[in-house]
């Protein structure tokens, strides 16, 4: 039977894990775009295109994840708990982390859609929140990965480790454009 009593529950967990992986890929592509010292056009363009459109693809999985978790009814999560943190009857702290992640994600998405209508510094400030949103998503996913499903937990852990490495690299690499402009200004002019 395709649609058993646990179908929604499995669908929710599967889409949750896929969202985690896709989100991590999107974040890494953004991190690489922002931090690369000497980008070459072709890969920078591909990274930018995937960053923008995969984030939309990720949303499909995330929305399915949220809807199935609530509709399933195996655990008691209200619709309001999707956006208001810490009010869920089931695991208020962990569902709450998911809710904070959703709120940040909405802010990030709205500012990115309106990027050409708002000041660049405002967009940038909100976009920095992606690091926090991603970390919250990793905590939410890792803590929910139950002991009988080590693979799901390992995937989330892997996302956390790989994303963490890229974030550390981003901090270490400082600002590529500023660095390059200093280099150009310091060279000998004939």
């Amino acid at each position, binding site marked *: 039977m395709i649609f058993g009593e646990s179908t929604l529950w499995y669908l929710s967990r599967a889409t949750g894990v896929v969202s985690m992986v896709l989100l991590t890929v999107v974040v890494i592509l953004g991190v690489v*775009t922002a931090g690369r010292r000497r*980008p070459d*056009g*072709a890969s*920078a363009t591909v990274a*930018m295109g995937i960053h923008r459109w995969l984030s939309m693809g990720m949303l499909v999985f995330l929305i399915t994840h949220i809807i199935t978790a609530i509709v399933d009814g195996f655990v008691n999560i209200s619709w309001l708990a999707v956006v208001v943190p810490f009010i869920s009857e089931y695991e208020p702290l962990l569902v709450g982390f998911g809710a904070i992640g959703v709120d940040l994600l909405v802010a990030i998405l709205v500012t990115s859609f309106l*990027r050409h209508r708002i000041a*660049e510094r405002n967009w940038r400030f909100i976009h920095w929140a992606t690091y926090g949103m991603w970390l919250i998503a990793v905590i939410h996913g890792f803590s929910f990965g139950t002991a009988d499903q080590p693979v799901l937990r390992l995937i989330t852990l892997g996302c956390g480790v790989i994303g963490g490495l890229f974030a550390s690299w981003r901090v270490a690499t400082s600002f590529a454009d500023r660095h*390059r402009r200093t280099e150009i200004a310091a060279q000998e002019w004939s």
Partner: protein
Amino acid sequence: MPSSADHRRVAVDRILCSGHGVCAQTLPASIALDEWGYPIIVEDHVDADAGALAVKLCPARALFLR
């Protein structure tokens, strides 16, 4: 030639540009890169749709149409 519905002029904000080189890929007939990877506009008249996509994909929001 003035801007029209299907034809626009592309320009770069030099202060915002951080040299990712994406515009030279999205508008290869219009934009070349200098030796440091910053854009040189060769032909500023671009197709409106191609121009809009290039503006959208610029990571620094430094490209604009007028």
